[in-house]
């Protein structure tokens, strides 16, 4: 309870103290320093605060690294990004007054920046940093972490509604522990990250850390997406900021697969050239294939036969309880067609609210005997007459 109160009071005081400064620097644009400095150049403010440009970088973001030392304070490295804003980078002096660093522009080996602070404060000295002196000082203390991040997805193609597991493998190739590791993971619109950390525990030099999260594809248009690189921001023990990024990944999102059985029915008439002899039996094989990806429920078959076609053997309209995907049912029916001509047999297979049908065609012809029946009938009297004539002739031939 006391701690909380003290913190509130402290925050209050800070607020009260800072307010005129902020107003002064914000509204009056009171800058203690507003100029360009080369790398390894420094300024002294009020004879006790030293600000040196350690390095400038323009890629990937324009930034400059400053070393700030002052009375009764440890040396601090501060990296200021161009876009950070005028009050983002604060440095508190021993007296309690703060100065703010704001980078205006970064060039190949110089940086234009502003230092704002108490309005009575002045730059008291410009100086060049002796690299030996500065470097020597730093050498003993600085250890550098170097994180290498690789991102892998367990599948390259995800269906709508499915989840891809994204794994980061982060290895510290440097010689110092990486701390304050921030992980900035981009995402795809319509996909949600589940359990994706934004900060990571410190990674000691040489250690490898694996972190993973689930990328849930909820409502992403099917297509090929590029997953932008993951950005890692971290610091060395000395407080220097570093960053690294992974390579980008490609993720294909396919339409959601609907699970449903699909039946196909096929009729095969066993005959030569699909010609059937009237009155003779022929067999028809019916095959029902489940070409879908789910097991069916109850299946019924309904046949449509021409009027003169009768079933002579076998069940023509069987019922099946189910057919597994990729599986099939087959049965044979014996039929007889009585009239000559073209016939079409149609069969429907019904399941759930769906149906499929197939039809088969065949020609029925009268048998050899049937075909010539009429001629035989006509020939009988002729033959009888002939026989009669022959008989008569024989009666009269001696």
């Amino acid at each position, binding site marked *: 309870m006391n701690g909380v109160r003290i913190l509130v009071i402290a925050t209050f005081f800070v607020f009260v103290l800072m307010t005129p400064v902020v107003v002064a620097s914000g509204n009056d644009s009171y800058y203690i320093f507003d100029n360009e400095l080369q790398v390894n150049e420094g300024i002294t403010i009020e004879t006790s605060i030293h600000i040196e440009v350690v390095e400038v970088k323009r890629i990937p973001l324009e930034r400059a690294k400053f070393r700030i030392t002052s009375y009764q304070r440890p040396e601090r490295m501060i990296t200021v990004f161009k876009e950070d804003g005028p009050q983002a980078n604060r440095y508190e002096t021993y007296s309690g007054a703060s100065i703010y660093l704001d980078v205006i522009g970064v060039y190949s080996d110089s940086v234009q920046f502003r230092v704002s602070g108490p309005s009575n404060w002045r730059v008291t000295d410009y100086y060049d940093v002796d690299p030996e002196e500065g470097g020597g000082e730093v050498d003993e203390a600085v250890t550098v972490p170097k994180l290498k991040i690789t991102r892998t997805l367990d599948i390259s193609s995800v269906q709508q509604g499915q989840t891809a597991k994204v794994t980061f493998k982060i290895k510290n190739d440097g010689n110092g522990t990486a701390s304050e590791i921030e992980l900035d993971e981009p995402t795809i619109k319509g996909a949600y990250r589940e359990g994706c950390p934004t900060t990571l525990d410190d990674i000691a030099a040489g250690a490898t850390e694996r972190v993973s999260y689930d990328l849930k594809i909820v409502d992403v248009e099917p297509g090929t997406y590029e997953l932008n690189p993951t950005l890692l921001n971290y610091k060395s023990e000395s407080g220097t900021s570093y960053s690294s990024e992974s390579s980008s990944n490609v993720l294909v999102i396919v339409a959601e697969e609907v699970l449903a059985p699909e039946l196909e029915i096929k009729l095969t008439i066993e005959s030569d050239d699909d010609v059937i002899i009237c009155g003779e039996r022929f067999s028809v094989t019916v095959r029902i294939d489940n070409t879908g990806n789910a097991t069916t429920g109850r299946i019924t078959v309904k046949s449509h036969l021409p009027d003169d076609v009768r079933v002579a053997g076998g069940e023509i309209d069987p019922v099946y309880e189910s057919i597994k995907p990729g599986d099939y049912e087959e049965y044979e029916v014996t039929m007889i067609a009585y009239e000559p001509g073209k016939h079409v047999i149609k069969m429907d297979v019904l399941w759930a609210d769906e149906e499929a049908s197939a039809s088969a065609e065949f020609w029925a012809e009268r048998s050899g005997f049937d075909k010539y029946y009429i001629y035989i009938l006509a020939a009988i009297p002729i033959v009888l007459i002939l026989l*009669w*004539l022959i008989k*008569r*002739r*024989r*009666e*009269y*031939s*001696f």
Partner: protein
Amino acid sequence: MLNILILGLGQCGNRVLDAVNHEAFGSGGTFAKYYSRQKFPASVKTIAINTAINDLKGLTDTRAKDRFHVPHLHGVGANRALGKKVFDDNKEQIMSEIDKRGSFELIFIITSAAGGSGSSFAPLLVKELKKAYNAQIICIAVLPFREEGSIFLQNTAFCIRELVAESPNGILLVDNQYLKKYAGDIKSAYDKINISVARRVLFLIEALNSEMLMVTDLGDLKTVMNGGIGIGTMGYYEAGKDGTIKSAILGSFKPSGLLFPANVYNEGARAMLIIKGDKKYLDLDLITKTVEELSTDVGQVFKGVLIKKGRPKVLSLFTLNSVPELENLYAAAADAIRFEMDKREQSKKQLDDAFAHIDELEPIY
């Protein structure tokens, strides 16, 4: 119904019989036998008998089972002596073949008098049939063309004599020579003669079998055939468009319709007239009157009237008191025989003379 047997002997007899069978089919022509039945006016059985199988084979309208072959190689030629022997040898078979066909009241024997088989069989058959059946037997004898040679003349002479000797109920003559006028060539003359004979025979049978008004019967036939010398012939006349029944009756006595040349008015002994035709033509009074007129010249005339569709047709059948033409034939035959005998004697003498050359000689080897 009358039971009638018609026998055709030898080639001539066979062929006339075949014509009878053909005519019995009616107007159907050659092919009638394939679809029609013979319509005999009575119960008629026919048998063609021959020693020459080729003659039997040549027949067309006689059933095969009604053709009886008397086996003798190549026939008998014109040799009546051989013919008689062959008949004797086969008498039983011939008679049993006839017997198979039942019993008869009237038998016709048709034969040529000139040939070998028929002319030799006929008299012998008359004898056998008389023994076996109580039937009237009428022989129809065909006389040869005179130019056919002396053997045919001889045969005819002897055949007729033998026939008369066996005394059938009658002999009706058909004279090829006389009927030669029918056609130019022999073949068609034969056909015409055969058909004429056949039609007359069938007409006669019809009349005998009918039960119509003014019918003639077997008794009448017998009486007619008994007249004169028992030899006669037949005449026929078919009335023209406007002909009266009288002219038709008289027409049937005219020489043009006769099968043998005779002068009925002079030589006729008895006659039978059969008149057939539509009722409208048949004026019975006129018929009776005409017949009565004829009777004064011809002698007894029997008449029968058949009412049948068509124009009046008249068949006349009669016996003669004298047969001058037959006498002529006999004279010619005698001449021929004598000539043959002389020739043979002469030839024999010539041969003997020739042989005389080697009398009392022996062959030397």
